[in-house]
Protein backbone atom coordinates (compact mmCIF):
# COMPACT_ATOMS: atom_id res chain seq x y z
CA UNK A 1 0.00 0.00 0.00
CA UNK A 2 0.99 3.62 -0.46
CA UNK A 3 1.28 6.22 2.30
CA UNK A 4 2.01 9.92 2.17
CA UNK A 5 5.00 10.80 4.34
CA UNK A 6 5.59 14.44 5.25
CA UNK A 7 8.68 16.01 6.79
CA UNK A 8 9.13 19.25 8.71
CA UNK A 9 11.92 21.56 9.90
CA UNK A 10 15.42 20.03 9.58
CA UNK A 11 14.00 16.83 8.04
CA UNK A 12 12.13 18.84 5.39
CA UNK A 13 15.38 20.61 4.50
CA UNK A 14 17.16 17.26 4.15
CA UNK A 15 14.47 15.18 2.36
CA UNK A 16 11.98 17.64 0.83
CA UNK A 17 8.51 18.28 2.20
CA UNK A 18 6.87 14.97 1.31
CA UNK A 19 7.02 11.70 -0.59
CA UNK A 20 4.84 8.68 -1.28
CA UNK A 21 6.20 5.46 0.19
CA UNK A 22 5.19 1.92 -0.77
CA UNK A 23 5.00 -0.25 2.34
CA UNK A 24 3.43 -3.51 3.51
CA UNK A 25 -0.12 -3.38 4.92
CA UNK A 26 -0.24 -3.67 8.69
CA UNK A 27 3.17 -2.11 9.27
CA UNK A 28 3.70 0.26 12.16
CA UNK A 29 5.08 3.78 12.28
CA UNK A 30 8.29 2.36 13.79
CA UNK A 31 8.60 -0.17 10.96
CA UNK A 32 8.17 2.60 8.40
CA UNK A 33 10.96 4.53 10.15
CA UNK A 34 13.17 1.43 9.93
CA UNK A 35 12.39 1.08 6.20
CA UNK A 36 13.46 4.68 5.63
CA UNK A 37 16.63 4.20 7.73
CA UNK A 38 17.47 1.16 5.56
CA UNK A 39 17.85 3.47 2.54
CA UNK A 40 21.12 4.61 4.10
CA UNK A 41 22.71 8.03 3.55
CA UNK A 42 20.93 11.07 4.93
CA UNK A 43 17.88 8.96 5.89
CA UNK A 44 19.98 6.61 8.01
CA UNK A 45 21.69 9.55 9.65
CA UNK A 46 18.70 11.79 10.35
CA UNK A 47 16.08 9.17 11.20
CA UNK A 48 18.58 6.98 13.08
CA UNK A 49 17.72 5.40 16.40
CA UNK A 50 20.14 7.72 18.18
CA UNK A 51 18.07 10.74 17.06
CA UNK A 52 15.22 12.31 19.01
CA UNK A 53 12.37 12.15 16.51
CA UNK A 54 8.61 12.43 16.69
CA UNK A 55 5.98 10.92 14.46
CA UNK A 56 2.41 11.81 13.63
CA UNK A 57 -0.39 9.77 12.10
CA UNK A 58 -3.26 11.62 10.45
CA UNK A 59 -2.14 14.90 12.02
CA UNK A 60 -1.93 13.69 15.64
CA UNK A 61 1.18 12.75 17.64
CA UNK A 62 1.59 8.99 17.40
CA UNK A 63 3.49 6.23 19.12
CA UNK A 64 5.77 4.10 16.94
CA UNK A 65 3.69 1.02 17.75
CA UNK A 66 0.69 2.47 15.86
CA UNK A 67 -0.34 0.58 12.73
CA UNK A 68 -0.56 2.68 9.58
CA UNK A 69 -3.73 2.33 7.52
CA UNK A 70 -4.00 2.62 3.75
CA UNK A 71 -4.27 6.25 2.70
CA UNK A 72 -2.93 7.56 6.02
CA UNK A 73 -0.91 10.76 6.30
CA UNK A 74 2.31 10.11 8.20
CA UNK A 75 4.78 12.75 9.32
CA UNK A 76 8.22 12.69 10.89
CA UNK A 77 9.80 15.74 12.51
CA UNK A 78 12.28 16.79 15.20
CA UNK A 79 11.16 17.58 18.76
CA UNK A 80 8.87 20.63 18.68
CA UNK A 81 10.11 24.06 19.80
CA UNK A 82 7.18 26.49 19.60
CA UNK A 83 5.79 28.83 22.22
Amino acid at each position, binding site marked *: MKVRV*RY*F*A*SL*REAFGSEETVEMPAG*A*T*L*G*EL*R*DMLIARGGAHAERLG*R*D*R*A*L*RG*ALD*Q*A*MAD*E*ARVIDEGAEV*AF*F*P*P*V*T*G*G
Partner: protein
Amino acid sequence: MKPGARVRIQRADFDLAAEIAALRAGDAAVGAVVGFVGTVRDRNAGGAGEVQALELEHYPGMTEKAIEAMIDEALARFDVRAVRVIHRVGPMQPLEQIVLVAVTAANRGAAFQACEFLMDYLKTQAPFWKKEATADGARWVDARVEDDEALARWGIRAGNAAASARTGR
Protein backbone atom coordinates in the same frame (compact mmCIF):
# COMPACT_ATOMS: atom_id res chain seq x y z
CA MET B 1 -10.11 31.57 10.63
CA LYS B 2 -12.76 33.83 12.11
CA PRO B 3 -11.64 36.47 14.64
CA GLY B 4 -13.52 34.79 17.51
CA ALA B 5 -11.98 31.33 16.96
CA ARG B 6 -10.30 29.62 19.93
CA VAL B 7 -7.14 28.97 17.94
CA ARG B 8 -5.47 31.22 15.40
CA ILE B 9 -2.24 30.56 13.53
CA GLN B 10 -1.21 33.72 11.72
CA ARG B 11 1.74 35.65 10.35
CA ALA B 12 0.43 38.99 11.61
CA ASP B 13 1.05 40.39 15.08
CA PHE B 14 -1.80 40.52 17.63
CA ASP B 15 -3.18 43.12 20.03
CA LEU B 16 -3.28 41.77 23.61
CA ALA B 17 -5.85 44.29 24.86
CA ALA B 18 -8.18 43.74 21.91
CA GLU B 19 -7.98 39.94 22.23
CA ILE B 20 -8.74 40.01 25.97
CA ALA B 21 -11.59 42.47 25.49
CA ALA B 22 -13.13 40.17 22.87
CA LEU B 23 -12.61 37.06 25.02
CA ARG B 24 -14.46 38.41 28.05
CA ALA B 25 -17.02 40.56 26.21
CA GLY B 26 -20.53 40.16 27.63
CA ASP B 27 -19.57 37.47 30.17
CA ALA B 28 -20.36 38.91 33.60
CA ALA B 29 -19.45 35.61 35.31
CA VAL B 30 -15.79 36.35 34.61
CA GLY B 31 -13.81 37.66 37.55
CA ALA B 32 -10.28 36.79 36.40
CA VAL B 33 -8.37 37.13 33.15
CA VAL B 34 -4.86 35.76 32.64
CA GLY B 35 -2.91 36.46 29.47
CA PHE B 36 0.53 35.03 28.69
CA VAL B 37 2.56 36.56 25.85
CA GLY B 38 5.73 34.87 24.60
CA THR B 39 8.20 37.17 22.83
CA VAL B 40 11.33 36.78 20.68
CA ARG B 41 14.57 36.96 22.67
CA ASP B 42 17.78 38.26 21.10
CA ARG B 43 19.77 35.54 22.82
CA ASN B 44 19.54 31.82 23.52
CA ALA B 45 22.59 30.12 25.01
CA GLY B 46 24.83 33.02 23.92
CA GLY B 47 25.02 36.75 24.58
CA ALA B 48 22.88 39.80 23.82
CA GLY B 49 22.24 40.28 20.11
CA GLU B 50 23.21 36.68 19.30
CA VAL B 51 19.84 35.94 17.68
CA GLN B 52 19.23 38.34 14.79
CA ALA B 53 15.94 36.90 13.55
CA LEU B 54 13.64 33.94 14.01
CA GLU B 55 11.71 31.83 11.49
CA LEU B 56 8.78 29.81 12.78
CA GLU B 57 7.61 26.75 10.84
CA HIS B 58 4.51 24.69 11.61
CA TYR B 59 2.45 21.74 10.39
CA PRO B 60 -0.73 23.32 8.99
CA GLY B 61 -3.81 21.37 10.03
CA MET B 62 -2.12 19.37 12.78
CA THR B 63 -1.17 22.53 14.67
CA GLU B 64 -4.77 23.69 14.94
CA LYS B 65 -6.00 20.18 15.90
CA ALA B 66 -3.32 19.80 18.57
CA ILE B 67 -4.12 23.15 20.19
CA GLU B 68 -7.90 22.57 19.99
CA ALA B 69 -7.35 19.26 21.80
CA MET B 70 -5.29 20.91 24.54
CA ILE B 71 -7.95 23.58 25.03
CA ASP B 72 -10.58 20.82 25.42
CA GLU B 73 -8.30 19.23 28.04
CA ALA B 74 -7.88 22.55 29.88
CA LEU B 75 -11.65 23.12 29.90
CA ALA B 76 -12.12 19.63 31.37
CA ARG B 77 -9.46 20.12 34.06
CA PHE B 78 -10.04 23.69 35.19
CA ASP B 79 -13.09 25.81 35.94
CA VAL B 80 -12.53 28.35 33.20
CA ARG B 81 -14.94 30.32 30.99
CA ALA B 82 -13.08 30.88 27.73
CA VAL B 83 -9.69 30.31 26.13
CA ARG B 84 -7.93 31.84 23.16
CA VAL B 85 -4.56 30.80 21.72
CA ILE B 86 -2.81 32.77 18.97
CA HIS B 87 0.54 31.57 17.61
CA ARG B 88 2.48 33.41 14.94
CA VAL B 89 4.46 31.74 12.16
CA GLY B 90 6.94 33.02 9.58
CA PRO B 91 9.78 35.49 10.04
CA MET B 92 10.08 37.51 13.26
CA GLN B 93 12.53 39.89 14.89
CA PRO B 94 13.71 40.13 18.50
CA LEU B 95 11.19 41.98 20.74
CA GLU B 96 8.21 40.83 18.64
CA GLN B 97 5.32 38.84 20.12
CA ILE B 98 5.15 35.12 19.19
CA VAL B 99 2.34 33.55 21.19
CA LEU B 100 -0.70 34.50 23.24
CA VAL B 101 -2.58 32.26 25.65
CA ALA B 102 -5.52 34.06 27.26
CA VAL B 103 -7.94 32.53 29.75
CA THR B 104 -11.01 33.86 31.52
CA ALA B 105 -12.49 32.31 34.68
CA ALA B 106 -14.66 33.19 37.66
CA ASN B 107 -11.61 33.09 39.92
CA ARG B 108 -7.88 33.64 39.49
CA GLY B 109 -6.70 30.18 40.57
CA ALA B 110 -8.27 28.37 37.65
CA ALA B 111 -7.24 31.10 35.22
CA PHE B 112 -3.56 31.02 36.27
CA GLN B 113 -3.46 27.21 36.26
CA ALA B 114 -5.18 26.78 32.89
CA CYS B 115 -2.88 29.36 31.28
CA GLU B 116 0.25 27.64 32.60
CA PHE B 117 -1.08 24.19 31.67
CA LEU B 118 -1.79 25.35 28.11
CA MET B 119 1.68 26.85 27.67
CA ASP B 120 3.37 23.72 29.09
CA TYR B 121 1.31 21.58 26.74
CA LEU B 122 1.92 23.80 23.72
CA LYS B 123 5.70 23.87 24.22
CA THR B 124 5.97 20.08 23.87
CA GLN B 125 2.92 18.93 21.86
CA ALA B 126 2.14 21.55 19.21
CA PRO B 127 4.07 21.10 15.94
CA PHE B 128 6.07 24.33 15.69
CA TRP B 129 9.80 24.66 15.03
CA LYS B 130 12.02 27.69 15.56
CA LYS B 131 15.03 28.47 13.40
CA GLU B 132 17.36 31.21 14.62
CA ALA B 133 19.49 33.41 12.38
CA THR B 134 22.85 34.28 13.98
CA ALA B 135 26.12 35.81 12.78
CA ASP B 136 27.41 32.22 12.42
CA GLY B 137 24.47 31.15 10.26
CA ALA B 138 21.00 29.70 10.83
CA ARG B 139 20.31 26.88 13.29
CA TRP B 140 17.26 24.94 14.43
CA VAL B 141 16.50 25.47 18.12
CA ASP B 142 16.92 22.38 20.33
CA ALA B 143 14.02 21.19 22.46
CA ARG B 144 14.55 21.53 26.21
CA VAL B 145 14.18 18.70 28.72
CA GLU B 146 12.89 21.33 31.19
CA ASP B 147 9.80 21.75 28.99
CA ASP B 148 9.06 18.00 29.21
CA GLU B 149 9.45 18.25 32.99
CA ALA B 150 7.05 21.20 33.10
CA LEU B 151 4.32 19.12 31.43
CA ALA B 152 5.07 16.16 33.74
CA ARG B 153 3.88 18.30 36.69
CA TRP B 154 0.37 17.95 35.25
CA GLY B 155 0.67 14.17 35.03
CA ILE B 156 1.33 14.08 31.29
CA ARG B 157 4.39 12.48 29.70
CA ALA B 158 5.67 14.84 27.00
CA GLY B 159 8.22 12.62 25.23
CA ASN B 160 9.47 15.60 23.22
CA ALA B 161 13.08 16.56 24.01
CA ALA B 162 13.56 13.01 25.25
CA ALA B 163 11.67 11.42 22.34
CA SER B 164 12.21 7.69 22.55
CA ALA B 165 14.39 5.75 20.12
CA ARG B 166 12.65 2.40 20.55
CA THR B 167 11.72 0.15 17.67
CA GLY B 168 8.27 -0.44 16.19
CA ARG B 169 7.22 -3.47 18.24
